[in-house]
């Protein structure tokens, strides 16, 4: 039992395991970017694939390569990475705590030489600090060993970096399980009541079912502006938020999200026009309906849409031009080219109306009357709650700080030994850039020898002058 536990622990921190896990994640990412993924494509795409090449489809489906990031093998690899990182961080912390016990410098002077000060100044000028001084005296020789260190914090680099990665993975797992994200098409003058069924599209964590922000959001207005080439310049929603009986006004734009009771609201770049129609039926009943049309990508093209008129058998096909005089996204002089079909059939024989409409116009659809009431903007708002986001940011900071410590501030330790005759020998250790470190030690040694020679010469001339 104990031996299997030791074996598992060894496996978790074995370099081969770590390299293999990095490679598995790497291969998964390559596969995920090259093979069409279920999250990005419609089910019909995979049906067509299945029909065209059943063997490739079966192979891809069996290995879950069409849903890599939620596949069993990928999640297992991520789980192993998490455990391996956690255990490795624990071991590194334990080892570092043992190593960083600093006894402080021992300064008992046993030599009648000024060498240590000279040595110290050389090291200090290079950013080293004196860790400790050890004196030893054998029957043959007396020796003093000065231990200098640089970048002591660098020892913690690996711990901090890997802890950062661990935090990012943990936060990603939290998001995978608990995140809530929903998209709302809100028309000017309308209010989103914060109920789950009001979202047009939702993207929820696997352990979350409903998303009910506990506030109401009212769209007072929407502004969209463009550069000279009709590329989007700026979009902004004027919102009124009603929370706990209190109302507050806000402006929402891209890159400028709003936080309400822990829920973030983002301005999406999806927006368009909402056309309002009132259908007065033969029975006298009036039905108000608004159709939302996406803003076209090209200013020369109309906004188009095709939709059933609720509770009736009519099918509407719309081509909306915001300005009849020129290509524009601003509805300054709008016109609608409308085709209405009966019996919800797009068959030409079912056309009941086909023509142009201006806002305020009314047309007869058989016994019914259709009134083109008004045009408003609709704005796409994204509501999101991610309970792990602060962990993600903490992980980012730790990861970067750790990487800087590992690679730019590697721990270096140099031992300078001086014997009673003033001879110096140095050796040292570091975990990175050994060849460069050896060059640095050589430079230090040369500098020390030069200084020691000068000191000896100075001492001799002093003795000569003063007897």
């Amino acid at each position, binding site marked *: 039992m104990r031996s299997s536990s030791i074996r598992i622990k060894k496996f978790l921190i074995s370099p081969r395991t770590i390299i293999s896990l990095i490679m598995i994640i790497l291969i998964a990412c390559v596969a995920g970017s090259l093979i069409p993924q279920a*999250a990005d494509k419609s089910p019909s795409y995979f049906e067509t694939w299945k029909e065209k090449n059943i063997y490739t489809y079966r192979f891809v489906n069996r290995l879950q390569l069409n849903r890599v990031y939620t596949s069993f093998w990928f999640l297992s690899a991520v789980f192993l990475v998490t455990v391996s990182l956690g255990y490795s961080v624990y071991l590194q912390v334990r080892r570092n705590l043992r190593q960083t016990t600093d006894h402080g410098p021992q300064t008992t002077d046993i030599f009648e030489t000024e060498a240590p000060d000279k040595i110290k100044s050389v090291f200090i000028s290079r950013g080293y600090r004196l860790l400790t001084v050890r004196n030893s005296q054998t029957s043959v020789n007396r020796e003093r060993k000065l231990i200098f260190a640089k970048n002591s914090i660098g020892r913690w680099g690996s711990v901090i970096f890997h802890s950062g990665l661990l935090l990012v993975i943990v936060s990603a797992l939290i998001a995978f399980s608990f995140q809530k994200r929903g998209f709302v098409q809100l028309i000017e003058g309308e209010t989103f009541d914060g109920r789950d069924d009001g979202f047009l599209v939702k993207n929820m964590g696997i352990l979350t079912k409903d998303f009910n922000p506990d506030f109401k959001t009212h769209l007072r207005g929407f502004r969209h502006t463009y550069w000279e080439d009709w590329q989007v310049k700026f979009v902004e929603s004027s919102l009124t938020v009603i929370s706990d009986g209190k109302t507050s006004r806000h402006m929402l734009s891209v*890159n400028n999200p709003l936080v309400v009771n822990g829920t973030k609201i983002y301005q999406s770049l999806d927006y368009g026009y909402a056309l309002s129609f009132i259908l007065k039926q033969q029975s006298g009943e009036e039905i108000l309906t608004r159709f939302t049309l996406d803003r076209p990508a090209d200013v020369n093209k109309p906004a188009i849409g095709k939709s059933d008129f609720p509770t009736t058998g009519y099918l509407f096909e719309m081509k909306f031009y915001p300005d009849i005089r020129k290509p524009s996204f601003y509805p300054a002089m709008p016109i609608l080219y409308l085709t209405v079909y009966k019996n919800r059939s797009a068959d030409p024989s079912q056309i009941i109306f086909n023509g142009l409409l201006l806002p305020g116009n009314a047309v007869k659809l058989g016994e019914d009357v259709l009134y083109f009431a008004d045009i408003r903007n609709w704005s796409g708002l994204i509501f999101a709650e991610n309970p792990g986001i602060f962990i993600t940011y903490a992980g980012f900071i730790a990861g970067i700080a750790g990487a800087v410590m590992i690679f730019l501030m590697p721990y270096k330790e140099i031992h300078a030994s001086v014997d009673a005759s003033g001879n110096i020998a140095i050796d040292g250790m570091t975990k990175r850039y050994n060849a460069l470190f050896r060059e640095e030690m050589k430079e230090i040694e040369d500098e020390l020898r030069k200084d020691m020679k000068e000191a000896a010469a100075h001492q001799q001339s002093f003795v000569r002058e003063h007897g």
Partner: protein
Amino acid sequence: MDNLHLLKYEVIFHWGAVALYIVSTIFFAYSVSFKKTSVLKYGMFSALAGLVPHSIALGLRWNMAGHGPYMAKYEVLSSNAWVVILMFILVGWKIPRLRAAGIIVVPLSFLMMTFGLFANPELKKLPPALSGVWLVIHILFNKLAVGAILISLGSAVLYLLKKGNKDREFYRKLPSLEVLDEYSYKFIAFGFIFWSITIVAGSIWANEAWGRYWGWDPIETWSLITWLLYGLFLHLRYFFKLRGVKSVYMLIACFVVSVITIFFIPFIIETLHGSYFM
């Protein structure tokens, strides 16, 4: 002066810079081919001289566009080359022994820049999402990563050259094989840090703009692939003492994947990041 005139001057300054970088490349090539150490400094001076018209061209561009040079191939490649050359000059000043790496760094930079200059020079306006401090950090560190990776590649190539010509005087003046190998490693480590900051700043920016910090967009995924590959390289060096020629080959593989990520993915797969490069 109207934009059309400024654009004309900007193009002249850009090509002036290219000409000086070509002169610099000739000096580096002459120095390495004919083993003349003294010529290296002329290569450095020409590269430094090239930075002057290059900076003016980018400044004019910035002034005309109303935003930094990071929209479309024309601006992206030119500003990448500017950062790489500046980094190389700073490295060559601080570590004179690495100046010969200019044989790789300078020609690759001006080729990158020339490729951009043949693209559409039209001034592009910024979409609303492309703003904010995190975007600037994201872009800046990506360019620094490109610079660090190119200098690392230059050092790796010097390693290969020295390995085959150890006894020649010119190569004796270069750092030892071990040290060259370590410089490659060190600059890859710089590249790794800069690449990490690129990813992190991009994630924070994406979270501010779209409400999610990771979306498996092709460029995001390939950035992660590149980062993992560098991570693999650094672990192989640490755990399995990957050194010498094997390390150089792995480094070249990392370089190729970085180039694919930054320059090819936007062309072959539809991506949210497409607007910066199309």
